[in-house]
């Protein structure tokens, strides 16, 4: 029996409730929105009591493609939507645990098949219309509708059957699963609850996919997040304004969010974002590279830079292990003979100087990796995976075991030959827009040169790189990175299942090609249904073990999450989960009051 009550983890934040007297006086003067009325069941958040008003400016790498949670797939869209929408149960980005959100409590039946969620009463959408169970039913009907093609649909299919939703009363909703689901209530995180009163007609017309684009007038848009749409200037910025009906309050009962406006500037290059932040045009910067972080760190003026520690992004090298029989050149077949040899992959792994990658690529702001789970993911990392340091002797021994040999080349350096006497040479693809990964590949190239391998680094535009890896499969090896959006193993299930589209070394297989891939498939399915964390952890630990032994991906390093914010911003607590800096945007405020922050 697992029942989670709506108790907030007050003490988990080690925060002191700062309360200065002038903060008080400012509240009344600024005409702070009315105190919560008694019929509304607001969620009270711990943290500093802020000052209302002000406009927070952040930059986005690209324009969001849409404001529609049903079609959003790109990071900028997700980041913007995250500030405008709300879910039933939310994962706290700092504690990585679930918390009540729109649902004030939930109950899971003893057999793990039935989830009963109770909604907060008296909540309103950002246009003032009330929220009730019908909106929730409508939302999940839309998500599960195949003709809508919502990305959320895959997550709502459990044991091959879609989750069924029914309403008990106006405030209670029951979700029925066909099979136990290890993720539990984390399932609801990120499932934005949609306003039925605005969308039902469009849905019936079958046009929901094209609705809620950036050109939607603000009055046709509504959400439950802290901010609502105000203005969109193409190519320049997106302005969100405070949602006056937001359902969270601070410990003093003041309705959140504190900020009047949240502005997203579209700044396409990382360097330009740094310049904007340096000049004070933006207030917060996240997704920083280590080089730019140290540039900002060197001349801190009025802002503070924070190294939050390793995030969830893992970078890795992988070889083309696709079944290309009869489809590829004899040369490629030859190369694949090496790649399929597990000792070859282990030798490559042993020869890579991960410590140098962390130092030279991330300037020490990162962690070396031997498995996909980073040290930032404390709950799921398998600490027993061995972390051998670089050993060329071991690499040479492994290669010799696998039948490779060396000869002296024309310039006196030794060159690696396979058992048929062919020179070992291959190329590594990297994304040309990601300087970090290109640098990693260059270091790997030099490491492998010492084993006598001829490696070339080929920077390629990201889209054509993904196309080569997943569609045409014309490549030798590739350096890529994946940034999981959640710490739970399920967020990357597509990478580990042999049938998954992100199973990069050999994607979308009809049947697992190897015994160890079969075992991973089984373990991932099992952990999906396992009822307790301990049981899931045991299986996921084994998955990490298998990956470390077979090295389908040679894990390299994970960068720290690096952020910066002006000193005047209060309640700034960056997390290692996305969105790193804006996850508690409703609590952010300007310490110096709105007058100074106005530009």
């Amino acid at each position, binding site marked *: 029996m697992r029942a989670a009550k709506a108790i907030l983890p007050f003490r988990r934040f080690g925060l002191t409730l700062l309360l200065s007297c002038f903060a008080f006086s400012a509240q009344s003067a600024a005409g702070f929105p009315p105190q919560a009325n008694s019929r509304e069941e607001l969620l009270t958040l711990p943290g500093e009591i802020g000052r209302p008003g002000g406009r927070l400016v952040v930059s986005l790498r690209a324009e969001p493609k849409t404001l529609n949670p049903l079609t959003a797939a790109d990071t900028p869209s997700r980041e913007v939507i995250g500030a405008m929408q709300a879910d039933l149960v939310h994962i706290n980005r700092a504690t990585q645990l679930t918390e009540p959100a729109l649902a004030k409590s939930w109950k899971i039946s003893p057999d793990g098949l039935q989830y009963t969620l109770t909604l907060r009463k008296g909540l309103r959408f950002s246009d003032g219309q009330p929220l009730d169970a019908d909106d929730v039913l409508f939302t999940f009907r839309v998500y599960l509708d195949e003709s809508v093609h919502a990305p959320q649909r895959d997550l709502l299919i459990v044991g091959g059957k879609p989750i069924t939703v029914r309403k008990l009363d106006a405030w209670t909703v029951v979700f029925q699963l066909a099979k136990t689901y290890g993720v539990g209530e984390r399932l609801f995180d990120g499932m934005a609850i949609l306003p039925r009163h605005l969308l039902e007609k469009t849905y019936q017309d079958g046009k929901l996919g094209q609705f809620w684009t950036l050109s939607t007038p603000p009055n046709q848009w509504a959400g439950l997040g802290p901010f609502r749409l105000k203005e969109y200037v193409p190519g320049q910025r997106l302005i969100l304004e405070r949602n006056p009906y937001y359902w969270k309050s601070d410990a003093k009962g003041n309705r959140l969010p504190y900020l009047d406006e949240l502005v997203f500037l579209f700044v396409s290059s*990382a*360097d330009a974002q*740094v*310049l904007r932040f340096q000049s004070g045009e933006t207030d917060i910067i996240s997704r920083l*590279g280590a*080089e*730019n972080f*140290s*540039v900002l760190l*060197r001349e801190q003026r009025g802002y503070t830079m924070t190294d939050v520690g390793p995030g969830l992004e893992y970078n890795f090298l992988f070889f083309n292990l696709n079944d290309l029989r009869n489809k590829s050149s004899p040369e490629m077949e030859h190369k694949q003979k090496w790649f399929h040899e597990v000792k070859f992959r282990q030798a490559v792994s042993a020869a890579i*100087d991960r410590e*140098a990658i962390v*130092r*030279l690529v991330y*300037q*020490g702001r990162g962690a070396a990796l031997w498995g996909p789970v980073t040290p930032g993911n404390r709950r799921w990392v398998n600490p027993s995976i061995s972390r051998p340091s670089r050993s060329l002797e071991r690499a040479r021994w492994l290669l010799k075991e696998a039948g490779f040999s060396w000869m002296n080349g024309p*310039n*006196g350096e030794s060159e690696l030959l396979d058992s048929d006497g062919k020179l070992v040479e291959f*190329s590594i*693809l990297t994304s*040309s827009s990601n*300087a970090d990964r*290109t*640098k990693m590949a*260059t*270091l790997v*190239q*030099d490491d492998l040169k010492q084993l006598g391998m001829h490696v*070339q*680094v*080929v*920077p*390629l535009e990201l889209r054509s790189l993904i196309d*080569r890896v997943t569609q045409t499969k*014309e*490549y*030798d090896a590739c350096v890529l990175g994946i940034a999981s959006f959640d710490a739970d193993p399920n967020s990357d299930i597509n990478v580990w299942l042999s049938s998954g589209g992100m199973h990069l070394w050999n994607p979308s297989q009809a049947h697992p090609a190897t015994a160890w891939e079969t075992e991973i498939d089984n373990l991932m399915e099992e952990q999906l249904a396992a009822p307790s964390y301990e049981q899931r952890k045991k299986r996921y630990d084994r998955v990490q073990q298998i990956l470390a032994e077979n090295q389908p991906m040679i894990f390299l390093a994970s960068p720290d999450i690096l952020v910066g914010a002006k000193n005047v911003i209060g309640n700034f607590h960056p997390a290692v989960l996305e969105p790193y800096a804006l996850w508690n945007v409703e609590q952010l405020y300007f310490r110096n009051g709105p007058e100074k922050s106005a530009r």
Partner: protein
Amino acid sequence: MTRRRPLTRWLIALLILHGVIACAGFFAPYDPLEQDRQRPYLPPMRIHVVDKQGHFHFRPFFYAVHLREGSFDQFEEEANTTVPMRFFVRGPRYHLLGLLPCSLHLFGAENGRINLLGSDAYGRDQLSRILYGGQVSLLAGLLGAGLTLLLGSLVGTTAGYCGGWRDEFLMRVAELFLALPWLYLLFALRAFLPLAVSPLEAFLLVVVVTGTVGWARPARLVRGVVLSVKERDFVRAARGFGASNVYLLRRHILPETTSVLSTQAAILVPQFVLAEMTLSFLGLGVPEPVPSWGNLLANLQQYSVLVSYWWMYLPALTIVPFFLAYLGLANALQEYAEPYKIEGRSDDSPT
């Protein structure tokens, strides 16, 4: 004879500059590909002749450097470890002029590395990379310019000498070549080529591409000269005496184009070096880790490098003496070929 002097002066300067680059293996203390991962972005090391105790040393020396504890790119000099500079030392092996196996270097050190111009992101010696990079960039420039002049004089002579529809056709093609957006075509061309090209293939590609792109301008110049020469009296006379086309071209017409061609060469070589640098800067040139001047400058695309490590600009400074010498040569050549035109120049600026 006086007007010959600047010409020889520029020629000698160019010879020395190219000699240094051609013998990069001798002048560079290290292998340009060798990484030293303990010293990324090491600033140029300071030469000392007076040590910290105030003693004077005849042999210049350096203090050994190490990374400051916990930092990534901050280095400290070790006051008690000196690294004396030695001349004509044995070092990494190389091939002098690409042929002669050799391991003698102009300078080096026995107990440690000296990075006279600092190091890059991987701790590779910047001086060695600039020198070796020059080999790629200059050779690409010289070969590219040679190819262009060859094509240009071929087309120009054909058009000028044959005249008629051939002239029309070739000149229209030349105009088309001048009008095409070359950079974008290059990107397209690169997409058709195999994914991984070896440094040599990439180099040849750069040479062929830059060489075939630029022929239109010299072709028009050569055509102009050929057109005017073939109507001169001595050519008509030779034809009247029964000289064949080949004889006329070889004996009377082509020699008249040499001054145009040599001036063009002096102008084109630096242009083509610059073209190679642009292509490498954009990632279309010789791939890492092989250095070329454009590759070295590509690091500056990152803002953090731009504001943190000034010695990464040095490759840009290196090209200045080369370009200066080439342009000086071009001027001197022009002066040598057509002195009256230069002296009496009012409004006709020769190209």
